[in-house]
């Protein structure tokens, strides 16, 4: 095949891909994808050849899907394929949050290699810092970024509250299955989700030992002095904010005090919490769901399972999401970029590389996770998570320094 770089050439090769994908799609349900699995584990996305992707190789296996155990044997992702979306073309200035944002860079690189006319100028920093910078820049009429990709809903909420966004098109946000993950006025669209969860050690606890209400944790005798948390971590603060919104200041303060007095141990981050649960030095902990999956992915036999609480802050589902910065002259490109992030392939990437919750119907979370509609998150507006200030004061007064 001729390796043409003009848009026509690309559309030809991409159409072939669609055909390939369709054939695979019909034949794959019974787990035929195993044949594309590279058993020695070298089939990582960064090793994949771009030309494989564009013409001959299996789309998901070689490029957008993770390569380990948790990612294997999955059905072909449903939803809109990148092949069916308009080409991305032009330069996009992107403010991208740190943390998960580091992994997302890979996805952006993949998009750039599919579309030679598309390039992204990223600048990464803490999501909250970028959100405040965006608001200041928009106020001064000097905005630098076309699009903001935050790893946390609170920063999206902050930009939205300060009216520093332009709404995304209906078409762009249309693929998001759950309206909770789209901001009012289409201010932002969630692209990957993460649930608050309770990793527990199966040698020390059975599933029934873990209460399904977070307020019962301090008084559960099996958990006394054997829990871990990471109060400095942003996601933990969002969890406390959610609790404040659902149950009020006083109950939240009391819960923090009770947990602290029950001997809950502090860690620097939630990966450490999950590791220590797997080691057995903790019986259970509070962490984002994907940390336990990362531990499991490295140590498949670790006695580690996840429990989810119901209808309270312990079951909060937060998102990383994208918004259009006010005044950008590349609004259409941003919309199309968002559609790409919500494509079948990109969603498969989030699900299998960072073990996030997909936002579209056609893609399932990795094995072992309940689907997002089986979770019962608290009934709050995610944008309200931006009220972190009160949360910090509350945590300080409960002597659980944030």
């Amino acid at each position, binding site marked *: 095949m001729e390796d043409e770089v003009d848009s026509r050439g690309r559309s030809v090769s991409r159409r072939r891909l669609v055909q390939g994908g369709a054939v695979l799609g019909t034949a794959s349900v019974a787990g035929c994808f195993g044949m594309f699995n590279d058993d020695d584990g070298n089939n990582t996305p960064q090793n994949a050849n771009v030309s494989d992707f564009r013409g001959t190789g299996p789309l998901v296996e070689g490029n957008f899907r993770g390569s380990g155990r948790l990612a294997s044997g999955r059905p072909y992702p449903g939803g809109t394929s990148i092949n069916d979306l308009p080409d991305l073309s032009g330069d996009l200035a992107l403010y991208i949050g740190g943390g998960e944002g580091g992994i997302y860079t890979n996805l952006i690189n993949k998009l750039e290699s599919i579309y030679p006319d598309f390039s992204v*100028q990223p600048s990464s920093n803490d999501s909250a810092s970028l959100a405040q910078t965006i608001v200041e820049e928009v106020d001064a009429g000097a905005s*630098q970024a076309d699009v903001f990709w935050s790893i946390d809903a609170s920063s999206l909420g902050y930009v939205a509250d300060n009216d520093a966004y332009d709404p995304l098109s209906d078409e762009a946000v249309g693929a998001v299955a759950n309206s909770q993950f789209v901001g009012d006025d289409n201010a932002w669209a969630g692209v990957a989700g993460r649930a608050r969860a309770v990793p527990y050690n199966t040698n020390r606890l059975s599933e029934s030992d873990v209460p399904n209400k977070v307020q019962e944790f301090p008084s559960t005798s099996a958990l006394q002095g054997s829990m871990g948390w990471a109060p400095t971590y942003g996601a933990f603060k969002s969890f406390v904010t959610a609790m404040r919104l659902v149950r009020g200041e006083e109950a939240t303060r009391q819960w923090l005090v009770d947990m602290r007095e029950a001997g809950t141990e502090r860690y620097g981050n939630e990966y450490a919490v999950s590791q220590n649960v797997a080691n057995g030095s903790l019986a259970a902990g509070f962490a984002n769901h994907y940390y336990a999956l990362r531990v499991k992915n490295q140590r498949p036999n670790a006695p580690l399972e996840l429990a989810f609480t119901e209808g309270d802050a312990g079951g909060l589902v937060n998102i990383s999401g994208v918004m259009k910065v006010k005044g950008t002259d590349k609004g259409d490109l941003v919309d199309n970029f968002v559609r790409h992030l919500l494509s079948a392939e990109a969603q498969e990437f989030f699900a299998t590389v960072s073990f996030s919750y997909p936002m579209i119907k056609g893609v399932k979370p990795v094995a072992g996770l309940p689907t997002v509609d089986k979770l019962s998150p608290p009934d709050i507006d995610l944008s309200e998570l931006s009220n972190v200030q009160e949360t910090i004061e509350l945590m300080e007064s409960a002597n659980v320094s944030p």
Partner: protein
Amino acid sequence: MSGQEDLERMSGRSPDRSSTVDSGLTMLGAAIAAVLVLPIGWLAIDAAGLGWTAVELAIESRTTGVLVRSVALVSVVTAASIVLGVALALLTVQGDLPFSRFWTILCALPLAVPSYLGAFAFVSAFGPNGAFANVLAPFGVDSLPSVYGFAGAAFVLTLYTYPYVFLTTRASLLSLDGTLVEAGQTLNSGRWEALKRVTVPQILPGIAAGSLLVALYTLADFGTPNIMRVEVFTQFIYAQYNAFARDYAAVLSLQLLGVTAVILAIESRIGVDESGAYESGGNRGAVDLDLGAWRYPALLVPVAVFAVAILVPIGIFGMWLTQGGPGYEAGQVAFSWEYGWNSANLALLAAAASVVVALPIAMASARADSRLAALADRASYVGYATPGIVLAIALLSLSLDLLPTLADLTGVDAVGLFYKTIPMLVFAYVVRFMPQAIGSIRTSTLQVDRELVEAAQTLGRSRLSAFRSVTLPLILPGLAAGAALVFLTTMKELPATLMLRPLGFDTLVTYIWRVQEAGFYGQAAVPALLLVVVSGLSMAVILSQETGDS
């Protein structure tokens, strides 16, 4: 040079100095200092927006708690750095060590390691379930004392900042008039008595200069207290800023600057007679501490410092490299050698700009006796004590308030030309780090014999030409040492770089930040080593500028 001349130069400057030059220099120095301090003034505007609430926030109990903790950390780290730095300086200069050059480099090297990387490596090594705990676990050691908290933070900060005291004390010791010490010893004072009564007073300003850098660094450092979980000003400011409470962050920043002012005032009391330490220039006869055979066991100190400060992080980096990441299915953040190039380029620009800016301030404060010159010198230190994130926030606000207006008035795209560009970044580095260059430039300026310059002028040279042919060659070592120090710290700077860098632009530290945030510790290893090696090279420049090494 006779003792008589020495005395003259110590007690006062030659009376017939050309005051027009000095006052011109003073005005220039003051103007530069004002520009440098300007962004920080923007904090006051942010805080003023809060009105009365600002005062309430400032005296709240948790704020005062943070204040007390910060001051305590600064005091402990400074005191410990003085003990370690002065002891090692005495040992390497006067200890008559074999391969003294080697030991000097060993002792100075921790300065090349960013303290946040050191802290991170420490927690990985000695924290719960760290490498060290895992090594000891089979021997029945279940738990190690916690590395977190005040003591851990003080330990790590001391380890990576004491070289400031070490270097400035060495400089004083090397220019120490050995005949004075000998006289002290001859006069039956005994070795330690001579040290106390002759050496210490002479090197005190040197110690004070280094201590000032340590104290202000500690006050402004964010990474180490954050990793070691000590709630100090910077950590608190950062938490408030990330909780979208920028105005509260501004109030806290102003309080922090208040502490800075106090530290500067203390230092200027000690350092006020700085002529005494430096002026006798050149090493006249090595002074020997005469440690005898004790000098060999004494070497255990630098060995231990090196092992803990350098080998532990390198070991941890190596472990990251071989053990990989935190269990993602796949993916990494591609590294490009361009990041190293960007870091070095920025650091070179910052070093060059800092020297140019520091020169008039340092010369004015060394030559003119005016209060304005002294004030300009002191004021510039405020930037050094301003945490990178605070400076970056202030600089962003200032630019976004002024540049669009400027663009409207002039029709020039002021935003595009300056906002989030390399010049803006370099400006921030100059504000932050230039004060480090002032010290060494002022010192070398003080050593220039005024009569030489005047002689050149008498012989028909213009002022500029006299400066070029007489003064500049004499102060060049000071300039180089100052530039190297700025280079070194710019290489390590993270918060302001993260916030002010142009889009699509990354350096070694921003790359390290990105991969660590994403949990790919293994990928931080190579750039971290690269950073330490390049910074270490600039250390060689600093040490090679020392005069009359023993």
